[in-house]
């Protein structure tokens, strides 16, 4: 007893005091990690100096000397390494954006199919999900690239769908070319978009005030579609579609999507769709059955109850994991290295790194780009969650 009371009155010995121990542990850890870093960095600097490896971005403005098979911005072998970086970054973002759109569409279709009453449909969708999720993405990419696209016939025996040609050189689609009425149509489109936005906010305000909901979707659609159509009628067609044409052994004109790009987009979107389908299914199943029954009791039609009651609630469950699937898709687009699609990793961490040897700056910048993308996504996600929390059960 004497000991116990002494312990409560006296300050504890420093090595028993949790605060002191915590501080000591942190100091030790800092010293250890700092020491490790110092040791490694010193060695690295010495190693790099001896082997003549550059450690700064001096290479950035030197000419690259290599060609890239696909680029959204003007680029040639005379362009700088810095420009090659942006070519790769843009190619990554392009594949990610197109892949995300396709994966979402396919994923929602299959996710809804999985909860279908129809036995055959739900089984087929289940088989799709199980198959694609349990195969490595790389295997799927190689399959699409080597076994499907590379095995297509040459340009002279192209598969033809209207003005679209598919052969082992890629997918050739008509190229949209701006002509006479383009400017007028673009202006009309912008004005229509603004009008549609105004109408949507007016409709929302009116619904809040009166409880009556003016037709939104149809009117907004009319605002967006009709003005450009009218402009096209008055000033002439805004776009001309220039199909590719077979000249000799290859196609000229038109828009050529390389086999690498097509394989990557198909592979990424079908693979990611299998994950999105599971998310959609979980979201739909998470809405209590009573909600659906209550909607039926209110006299909503099947479509209305799905659109106004079930889907808005399911979306809350669906959107957070959906964002992380988009991030995964973006990161997975780096598998482009295996089929030589010029994405960020293939161009910058591959070719540029091999040519310049500047390992540290290149690795750091590439990691920073991916980190920035995922940070941006998580900031957006947090904002969305905060909005949900603020609005609670409302709108």
């Amino acid at each position: 007893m004497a000991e116990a009371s002494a312990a409560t009155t006296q300050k504890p010995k420093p090595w028993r005091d949790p605060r002191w121990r915590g501080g000591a542990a942190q100091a030790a850890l800092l010293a250890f990690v700092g020491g490790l870093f110092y040791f490694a960095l010193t060695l690295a600097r010495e190693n790099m100096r001896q082997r003549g490896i550059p450690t700064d971005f001096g290479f950035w403005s030197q000419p690259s000397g290599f060609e890239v098979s696909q680029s959204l911005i003007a680029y040639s072998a005379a362009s700088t390494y810095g420009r090659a970086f942006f070519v790769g970054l843009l190619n990554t973002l392009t594949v990610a954006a197109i892949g995300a759109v396709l994966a979402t569409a396919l994923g929602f279709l299959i996710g809804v199919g999985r909860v279908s009453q129809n036995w055959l449909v739900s089984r087929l969708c289940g088989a799709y999900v199980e198959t694609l999720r349990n195969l490595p993405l790389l295997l799927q990419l190689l399959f699409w690239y080597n076994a499907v696209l590379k095995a297509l016939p040459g340009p002279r025996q192209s598969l033809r769908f209207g003005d679209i040609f598919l052969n082992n050189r890629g997918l050739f689609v008509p190229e949209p070319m701006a002509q006479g009425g383009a400017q007028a149509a673009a202006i009309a489109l912008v004005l229509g978009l603004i009008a549609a936005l105004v109408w949507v906010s007016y409709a929302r305000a009116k619904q809040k005030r009166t409880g009556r909901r003016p037709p939104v979707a149809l009117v907004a659609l009319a605002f967006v579609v009709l003005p450009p159509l009218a402009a096209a009628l008055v000033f002439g067609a805004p776009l001309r579609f220039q199909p590719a044409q077979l000249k000799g052994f290859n196609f000229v004109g038109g828009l050529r999507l390389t086999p690498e790009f097509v394989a990557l987009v198909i592979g990424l979107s079908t693979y990611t769709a299998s994950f999105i389908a599971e998310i959609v299914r979980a979201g739909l199943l998470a809405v209590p059955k009573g909600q659906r029954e209550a909607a039926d009791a209110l006299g909503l039609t099947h479509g209305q109850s799905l659109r106004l009651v079930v889907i808005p609630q399911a979306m809350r469950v669906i959107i957070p994991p959906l964002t992380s699937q988009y991030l995964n898709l973006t990161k997975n687009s780096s598998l482009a290295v295996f089929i030589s699609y010029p994405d960020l990793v293939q161009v910058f961490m591959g070719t540029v790194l091999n040519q310049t040897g500047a390992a540290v700056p290149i690795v750091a910048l590439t990691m920073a780009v991916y980190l920035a993308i995922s940070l941006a996504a998580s900031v957006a996600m947090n904002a969305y969650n905060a909005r949900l929390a603020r609005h609670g059960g409302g709108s």
Partner: protein
Amino acid sequence: MSEAGLVLKPPARDGALAQARAHLFGGWGSSLATLSFAALILWLAPDLLRYLVLDAVWRAPDGAACRATGAGACWAFIVEKFPFFVYGPYPPALRWRVDLTMALGAALVAWNLWRGAPRKGLALTLFLAVYPFVALALLYGAPFLGLAIVPTSQWGGVFVSLLVAAVGIVFSLPFGVMLALGRRSRLPVVRMMSIGFIEIVRGAPLIAVLFMANVMLPLFVPEEWAPDRLLRPLIGVALFASAYMAEVVRGGLQAIPRGQTEAAQALGLSAWRTQRLVVLPQALTLVIPGLVNTFIGLFKDTTLVAAVGALDFLRAVDVARLDPAWAGPTIATTSYIFAGLFYFVFCFAMSRYSLAVERRLAQARAR
């Protein structure tokens, strides 16, 4: 007729036929879907059967038979290359060492996964602490035991895939737990370092991490210690898997009620013993399905080590595919179907195991 209408029975709700009708022809939309998908299956199935079985080439000395027009899958190619798929260029006379390693590993894994097995603690210790050294001695060689050294440049095939997956699992579990605990620590330095590591690694694609490990690791150590070409991707995979494992484990830690920690403290347990004896056992049990899913992802990701020159199973298949003696229009498809079967069997089995565990855990909670 109208009287007959009055006594009409409601449609039967049970019975196989009624069930089938309700689930296949529930409405005009449903009927349309059923018919069109059934037609699609009936249209594709014969072609598929012909390609995979009837027209397939099962035995052939080289690719000539597979190049014939109308020939289906070239299984003869798979048979011929099978040893290469499993062992890569590992010296044929020493392949029993790989066999022994894989057999020991399979036995230990089975012991660990089998629910009613005796001495599970011993099984886990053997797997985590003893087996890695035995495997290293067998695969790489140990001159003092009379096992000749086989450099890693001669490793390849299925066993490299399994090795990468095993190293990822064995290292990511302890590191992942440490990082997860660090992320929840009240010490800011520990917490910041854990968060920084986890988020940087999770933000980057595995390919980037592998490239980084490949070019940066040799820079940070004295030249004579420069890690082996296969060791670098192994380190990369281990780091990468740890960050993902940490997030799974963190989910489990968060699900353990505070009362558990407080009760342990009230009993006078130290912070470490609280975690080790009370919190972690509960948290890890809770996240077994998540851990298995991470393993599945890791197993699929082992294919990416080929980006830095390791010859894993898929890479071995892709290399064998280019053998000019076998070149032919069906080789690529055959190779990828075979590789797909291999990965599917592993991943599907793991995902079923995870589902079974999940169901058992749910039952245990309901009790």
